[in-house]
């Protein structure tokens, strides 16, 4: 019996966000719980499974917050190293996801506050090249990404958690530790900003959309 894998259910209350969706990777919730339990026992291979399950989400949040791929890579690595040190305090796979999102957002915001306000966007369009070429309107999507990068750090984090991570406003408020009304206010203003200046780019979608 002692040799069985250990897994814990999502804990409610202030330890985790039980409504958070599963991680990036294809691993189901049971497999992630198992990997977490094995990682807590010191299995490095299990910890690598956790990294692979969440690396897309963590790296993308870091990249879209910090804009510079090298900085994003460093931040993402720092977050996972920190996770390794704090594994004993992670109660479940859902808690893990909550912890990662919260840590990467807060550290990115801290770095941005210490950094000069204007950081030129990378010229090589590294993110665009990495995207699969299956989008319906790559021009609009690139424009949207650029506009998101121009938002202030906190509203940008709110937009990313909403539209990249697919969190609801209460979940975003929980991750960022801000009032729900503030989240809603950021969402409303940011969406209006993003939408403005996109009208001429959105026309092809409306015209071409069969639905």
């Amino acid at each position, binding site marked *: 019996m002692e040799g069985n*894998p250990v*897994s814990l*259910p999502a804990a409610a209350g202030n330890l985790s966000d039980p409504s958070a969706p599963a991680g990036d990777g294809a691993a189901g*919730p049971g497999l992630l719980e198992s990997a977490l339990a094995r990682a807590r026992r010191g299995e490095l291979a299990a910890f690598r499974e956790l990294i692979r399950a969440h690396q897309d989400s963590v790296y993308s949040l870091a990249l879209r917050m910090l804009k510079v791929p090298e900085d994003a890579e460093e931040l993402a690595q720092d977050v996972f190293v920190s996770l390794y040190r704090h594994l004993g305090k992670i109660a479940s796979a859902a808690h893990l996801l909550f912890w990662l999102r919260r840590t990467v957002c807060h550290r990115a915001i801290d770095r941005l506050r210490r950094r000069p306000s204007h950081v030129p966007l990378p010229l090589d369009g590294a993110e665009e090249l990495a995207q699969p070429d299956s989008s319906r309107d790559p021009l609009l999507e690139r424009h949207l990404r650029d506009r998101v990068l121009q938002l202030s750090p906190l509203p940008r984090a709110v937009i990313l958690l909403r539209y990249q991570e697919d969190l609801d406003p209460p979940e975003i408020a929980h991750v960022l530790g801000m009032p729900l009304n503030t989240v809603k206010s950021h969402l409303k203003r940011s969406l209006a900003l993003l939408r403005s200046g996109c009208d001429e780019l959105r026309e092809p979608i409306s015209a071409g959309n069969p639905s």
Partner: protein
Amino acid sequence: MRLRSVILSCALLALPALAAAADPGRLQLPDFSALSKKATQSVDISLDPSLLHLAGGAIGSGGDKADVNDLIKGVRGIYVRSYTFDRPGEYSKADVKAVQAQLLAPGWQAVVSTHDLKQGSDVDIYLRRSGDHTDGLAIIAAEPRQLTIVNIVGAIDLARLAQLQGQFGVPKVGITASAPAKNGSAIAQTH
């Protein structure tokens, strides 16, 4: 040579009995790996005396934390199996009966049972007593979409255990064992 193998066989056969005698409050929990694969959430915890000691040290001391260590000072092991499923019928009565059969052994006594006919859920608490002290606790909570078995080896104060919920950072876990409704519930039988 033959005598030696007979002695060895007897010793091997006696081992489970010796183990049970050493730890009479411990249940032999079945292999639930098949249930674990079907479950959307599963808990599989086995804390023997050494791990309990390790855990107690990690909890720390002083103030409220001392209460947790005080609560488990008479405990020699904690074993939990809990499985939550998407739909009813994913586990069978046979899975539960394998554990319940052990609770018919001398020393074990059902102290309270709740049966909710409407919800189809049962929660039974058993204590094992040796003389005037307790050396085992078992909880079986069987709901349509969740099965939970808890075995605490040694002595633990039930009242203090009940008060622990929500304290000391003990998370309120998603145990959805719904409290039996007033209507349609066959009521607790206190033995």
